């Protein structure tokens, strides 16, 4: 094994024999074949004695999509790293500027494909603010009900992924049982298993039906027990716990300054949840707690972030239970014209997605297409923590830290 001992600032060029070898076997070059664009890039791609680059991704099973990370390592220790994004970039914001308000819903659906109802929720809420529409109460309850179901399915999947990244194969199979039950349930009212395209400006696309209700009733009768059983499968596993405890600590102040939101922020001791901080929909009427962990001065570690999501599942089950009891009768859509032309203006709406604050900033210029639509995805911001948390850790812990932040590349790359 040859180690890179380039002098500082000397970057490999295209005719470098090492790069040629990499090209021949179809691998990625760790060192980019162009001069550094920023000081930080120059600093990163210069090696000190004993250091070398190792390329992880973009086709790596534990990067949750197509993320590429260039690791600078010294032996087994990660010295620094440089995430490379953009492999899934589809230009959704540009597409939204050229599709009318109803089309936007299907454009944003595939962004964060694990919990796509939340991708629809934020833009739909922003457009409702632009149009000053009041959403019928039944529609709001259905939104909360389906949203919380999807949150459970997303967190269940997280639990399995987390174990998978640490080498445990079994839990993901149980996760997919839960997820399958929930997506089948949602498929009964939306017709889709993944990209639901269900929320509409002013309401939802279809009312609850018999198949949904019978599946939901069936599932609810054993969901809490099943959740505890899944927890029992992992939380008492000594290897699992010891690989997460004390790894990737984030304190309260750092988390806020890194603009982290969602479970990752709450696991660092900040009780910030958009559902309570900026109540939207019918959340003010519902009784649920905001679980917080890692209140100590050291903040929360990977294990806290994992456990916090399990706490959230319990709260979501409480919300679903209340929704079913309080579900009012009435229409599920506000009366709106088919072609929407909101008056010129600006609106910002944010929802609490399973990964954090999912926001949309929409500008209307009076036509039937948004003039500008900014989509704020929580995973994009949360992923920045990886660079900070990984320094000094072992390569094997890269997986534990990254999995505990629960990024989804579809949303990060937009």
């Amino acid at each position, binding site marked *: 094994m040859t180690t890179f001992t380039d002098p500082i600032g000397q970057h490999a060029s295209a005719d470098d024999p090492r790069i040629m070898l990499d090209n021949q076997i179809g691998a990625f070059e760790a060192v980019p074949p162009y001069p550094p664009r920023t000081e930080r890039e120059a600093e990163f791609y210069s090696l000190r004695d004993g250091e070398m680059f190792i390329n992880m991704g973009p086709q790596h099973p534990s990067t949750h999509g197509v993320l590429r990370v260039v690791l600078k390592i010294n032996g087994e220790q990660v010295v620094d790293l440089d995430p490379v994004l*953009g492999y899934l970039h589809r230009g959704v914001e540009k597409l939204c500027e*050229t599709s009318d308000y109803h089309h936007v819903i299907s454009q944003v659906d595939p962004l964060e494909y694990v919990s796509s109802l939340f991708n629809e929720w934020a833009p739909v809420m922003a457009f409702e603010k632009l149009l000053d529409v009041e959403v019928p109460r039944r529609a709001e309850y259905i939104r909360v009900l389906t949203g919380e179901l999807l949150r459970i399915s997303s967190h269940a999947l997280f639990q399995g992924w987390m174990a998978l990244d640490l080498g445990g194969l079994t839990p993901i199979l149980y996760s997919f049982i839960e997820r399958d039950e929930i997506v089948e349930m949602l498929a009964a009212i939306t017709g889709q298993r993944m990209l639901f395209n269900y929320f509409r400006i002013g309401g939802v696309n279809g009312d609850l039906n018999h198949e949904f209700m019978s599946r939901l009733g069936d599932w609810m009768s054993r969901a809490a027990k099943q959740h505890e059983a899944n927890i029992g499968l992992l939380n008492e596993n000594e290897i699992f716990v010891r690989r997460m405890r004390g790894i990737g600590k984030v304190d309260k102040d750092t988390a806020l300054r890194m603009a982290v939101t969602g479970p990752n922020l709450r696991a660092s001791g900040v009780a910030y949840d958009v559902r309570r901080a900026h109540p939207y929909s019918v959340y003010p009427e519902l009784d649920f707690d905001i679980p917080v962990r890692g209140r100590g001065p050291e903040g929360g570690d990977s294990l806290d972030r994992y456990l916090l999501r399990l706490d959230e599942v319990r709260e979501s089950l409480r919300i679903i239970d209340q929704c079913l009891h309080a579900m009012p009768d009435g229409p599920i859509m506000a009366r709106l014209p088919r072609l929407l032309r909101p008056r010129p203006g600006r609106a910002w709406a944010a929802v609490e997605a399973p990964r954090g604050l999912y926001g949309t900033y929409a500008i209307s210029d009076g036509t039937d297409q948004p003039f500008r639509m900014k989509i704020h995805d929580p995973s994009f911001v949360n992923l920045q923590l990886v660079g900070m948390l990984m320094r000094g850790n072992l390569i094997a812990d890269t997986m534990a830290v990254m999995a505990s932040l629960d990024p989804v590349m579809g949303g990060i790359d937009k």
Partner: protein
Amino acid sequence: MDRTLRARLEKRFADRMSGPVRQRHDTTEIRIGAADLTEVMTALHDEPDLEFVLLADLAGVDTGDHMQVVYHLWSARTPDWLRVIADGLPRDNPRIATLTGLWPGAEWMERETYDMFGIIFEGNRDLRRIYMPPDYTSFPLRKDFYLPDDAARSPGGGVRHMERTHVPTGTPGRVARRTVKA
């Protein structure tokens, strides 16, 4: 709408704002010049009666006439979102100060805005493209970005805004690009 927040902002930033405080739904909006950004944001973040500790979003906007950078902030002191619009960046050389001193997490958001609009955030240590490849030269979310759409050049072209406004320069019948008063 939080009336007390409005009063506080009007009192504190009277000489910095380039327009009235606007309130609609659950959002309060102030508009400042790009040169005052660091000062205003530091005050919003640090002062105990404001304490906007969380940067919820950073968005670039090309109004067709000039550029803006729009920040959304959260504070436990108010039930409102705060929107800060840093206004009046010239389209040919948009420059604004970085916020990575206050929020290191703004680094990627600024990289994204640079990538999409070409807005230079002065002081950001790592301002390079984040989504587009390094040899890419244009800025896709600018309003004069040519969207290579066959429909624009079809016989029916010009019916929708997209087709009207994204025709390459020199095409007969080209109209001015879309603008907005934002």
